[in-house]
């Protein structure tokens, strides 16, 4: 299982902030996971679209599309940050 977290605008648009997911065997990178999630429906297709300005972290480190993912990872998706 992997833990998926969604924050801010993304959490509201997707209607969830956290879920556990059995990692499909054909998914080994953040990019392929994002592509997988984008096929869940309209809101997911829009928010996870390749052109969408989205950031992600794997185990609380900023990650990119080619970052590897494995069972047990905590993966977060979120918009560009706006603190300070």
């Amino acid at each position, binding site marked *: 299982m992997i833990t998926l*977290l969604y924050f801010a605008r993304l959490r509201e648009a997707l209607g969830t902030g956290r879920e556990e997911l059995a990692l499909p065997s054909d998914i080994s990178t953040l990019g392929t996971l994002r592509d997988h999630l984008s096929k869940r429906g309209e809101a997911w297709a829009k928010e996870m679209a390749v052109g969408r300005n989205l950031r992600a972290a794997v185990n609380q480190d900023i990650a990119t599309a080619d970052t590897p993912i494995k069972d047990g990872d905590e993966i977060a998706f979120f918009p560009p*940050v*706006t603190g*300070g």
Partner: protein
Amino acid sequence: MSVRVQEQDFDVSAELALMRLGNPKIGAIASFVGVVRDINEGDSVATMTLEHYPGMTEKAITEIIDQARGRWEVLDALVIHRVGTLKPTEQIVLVIVASTHRGDAFAACEFIMDFLKTQAPFWKKEITPNGARWVDARVTDSRAAERWSSVEKN
């Protein structure tokens, strides 16, 4: 070195005094306080709610402080960032850096703040007369952080 994410307000004077006490090597302390504005993007802001990613936030800010320590002499550093609902005039963020001399303290304080704005996982949602809206990231904030890559280490 200390990082705190909290709902409650902070006392700048008390934090400055605490850093100064007990370390006679400190010759300069620089601080920055971020405050909630009443106008953003032309609309009045009634309240603002800050959300963050618990765990990653503290980790990201600690890494930013570590980077600052690699570039300047930093004897001590403190970052406090508030979360939850805040009103205009309230304090959002405090950065304090202590060094032997002011140059390092000023530079490290500004560096930490510039990277906090672009790297630390916080998100602001504003309540305006036109409804609630998530604040968009600013290009000027990215540029502020990027300029450090061309600044020589001193």
